[in-house]
């Protein structure tokens, strides 16, 4: 059984149970309400986006979902099970993968080994459940697992296997980050500004990649500044401002929502635009 097939047997039927649910989630730092009562649902096989101006709480929300920040209030449910008190390191085993705002590759490992770390996480989680696959992977040890080959194929990294991160362009390094997350064969993929610092061509590449993974049934949550990219990539967009959800729905509609435009541009600009 190839890994591509392993991917497809994770496809959930449309309208299936949500992958992740946030119920009235709040994160306060002292008096600062970074996230204040967010309720949302992420479904399998869809790309969700979060937009919002700087400081609107997007990154804090990601930190809350990945359990790096303690919730002040509210509930997190992964596949219907609460994960409020699950250690951050156990999330990977539950099928949650993420990329970071900045490139975080290990400088002394080759691209192959960097991506293998993702597959290791998957294998370790499988090993804890004592499946045959886990033992086989463990015995194979240093070899390249099929998940790595597959992830590098999807991110178009073939030929880069023996390169070190410092030898590659920034855009390529970001692809390695995504490959590492894909190699975990996650159910939920969180992408924190995956195209920051990329040019238009590279952005289009990433957009295409995310969409190809959607068709494989993966649930994705994307945080991005580039609104055009969000419109082109996402199925469902959440707009945040001052720690709250102010709109959600189809990307084009959300972007045209007056509250969203106001949050981004300020009331006066909007009135000015309307006056013309």
């Amino acid at each position: 059984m190839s890994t591509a097939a392993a991917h497809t047997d994770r496809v959930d039927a449309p309208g299936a149970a949500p992958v992740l649910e946030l119920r009235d989630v709040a994160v306060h730092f002292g008096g600062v309400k970074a996230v204040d009562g967010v309720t949302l649902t992420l479904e399998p096989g869809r790309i969700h986006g979060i937009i919002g101006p700087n400081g609107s709480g997007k990154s804090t929300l990601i930190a809350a979902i990945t359990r790096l920040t303690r919730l002040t209030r509210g509930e997190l449910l992964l596949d219907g099970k609460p994960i409020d008190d699950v250690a951050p390191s156990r999330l990977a085993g539950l099928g949650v993968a993420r990329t970071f705002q900045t490139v975080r590759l290990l400088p002394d490992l080759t691209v192959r080994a960097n991506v293998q770390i993702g597959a290791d996480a998957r294998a370790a989680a499988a090993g804890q459940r004592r499946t045959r696959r886990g033992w086989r992977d463990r015995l194979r040890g240093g070899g390249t697992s099929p998940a790595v080959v597959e992830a590098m194929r999807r991110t178009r990294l073939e030929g880069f296997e023996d390169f070190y991160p410092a030898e590659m362009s920034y855009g390529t390094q970001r692809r390695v980050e995504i490959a590492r997350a894909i190699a975990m064969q996650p159910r939920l993929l969180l992408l924190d500004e995956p195209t920051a610092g990329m040019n238009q061509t590279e952005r289009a590449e990433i957009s295409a990649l995310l969409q190809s993974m959607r068709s494989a049934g993966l649930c994705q949550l994307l945080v991005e500044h580039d609104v055009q990219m969000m419109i082109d990539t996402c199925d469902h967009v959440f707009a945040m401002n001052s720690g709250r959800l102010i709109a959600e729905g189809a990307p084009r509609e959300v972007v045209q929502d007056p509250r969203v435009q106001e949050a981004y541009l300020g009331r006066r600009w909007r009135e000015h635009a309307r006056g013309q």
Partner: protein
Amino acid sequence: MSGFLSTNLVLVQSTLSGLLLALSIQVPLRMGVFSFAGAGSYGIGAYGAGILVLRYEYGALPAIALTVVATAVVGLLLGLLINRLAGLYLAMATVAFDLIISVVAINGGELTGASTGLYGIIADFTTAQMVVLTLVALALVALSERGRLGRRVETVREDPELAASMGISVRRYRLAAFVASGALGGLAGAMNVLVRSTVGPLDIGFGLIVLALTMIVVGGSRSWVGAVIGAVIFTWLPDLLAVIGEWQELVYGVIVAVAAIYLPRGIHGVLADGVRWVQRKRRDRRAAAAGVVEEDEDGGVRPPEGEDLTGEGGVPLPARAGPDPAHALDQLAARPQAGS
């Protein structure tokens, strides 16, 4: 060979115990735990094995086994206690731990021989046994640098937050570092006291930390190879430097200072960079032979590719125009690759 061994027996034994001592500080360092507790474990190991043999008439191997288990447990307890400290604070807390051990040794009265230490610790311990035990420990450490475990250790050191997102329990790895450090330090101390037959408070003071650190700094902190290089150099250097005579201490100091400043990854780091350079040259030559490698604007090298990733002529945002990008990507990927 046997002639060499018998004339240099003391140096060989010192190399082995020095190597294990260096490993006891290098192993935690490799996991990002800046702990010098290995030197304290060495002290516990030396005194522990000495007391077991001298006062309770244990055989060499049972004494070693018992002290190694004890130092591993002490390592675990210490780890549980100070695990939440990091950086310089952790380093200094472990230095304090080491120095407390030596003060305890001075104040141990009859049991530890106070300021004179223990003498006449004679046991049935052979150099061959010492070599075997060292090799076993070395092999275990070397294994932890390979495969999945090696990658995970690397991740824990370089980026704990990334490690957590990759399903690695950083806390557990850090605790394991304390346990391994305790066991290695304990083994080093126990074996050394059994071949030397004596140990005193001065053998386990601040100088021990400096010795272990210099071995790693000069040899290299990232691999057991570095510890071997460091242990060999600093055990044999004083003999070789006898040629320079009276200034050997100074030369020794200059070597350490230069390595600490200019070679942060030690001699092993230089060797590893060299190997990587050769690998890169070979790889690039292979690619050049295939004739398709081109340079990026930013100097990065691109591997052979069929064509522009966005499909036909680089459509800026594929969802707005052109073929279905997901489809295009899969089509591209399905195409046989040139040169790979």
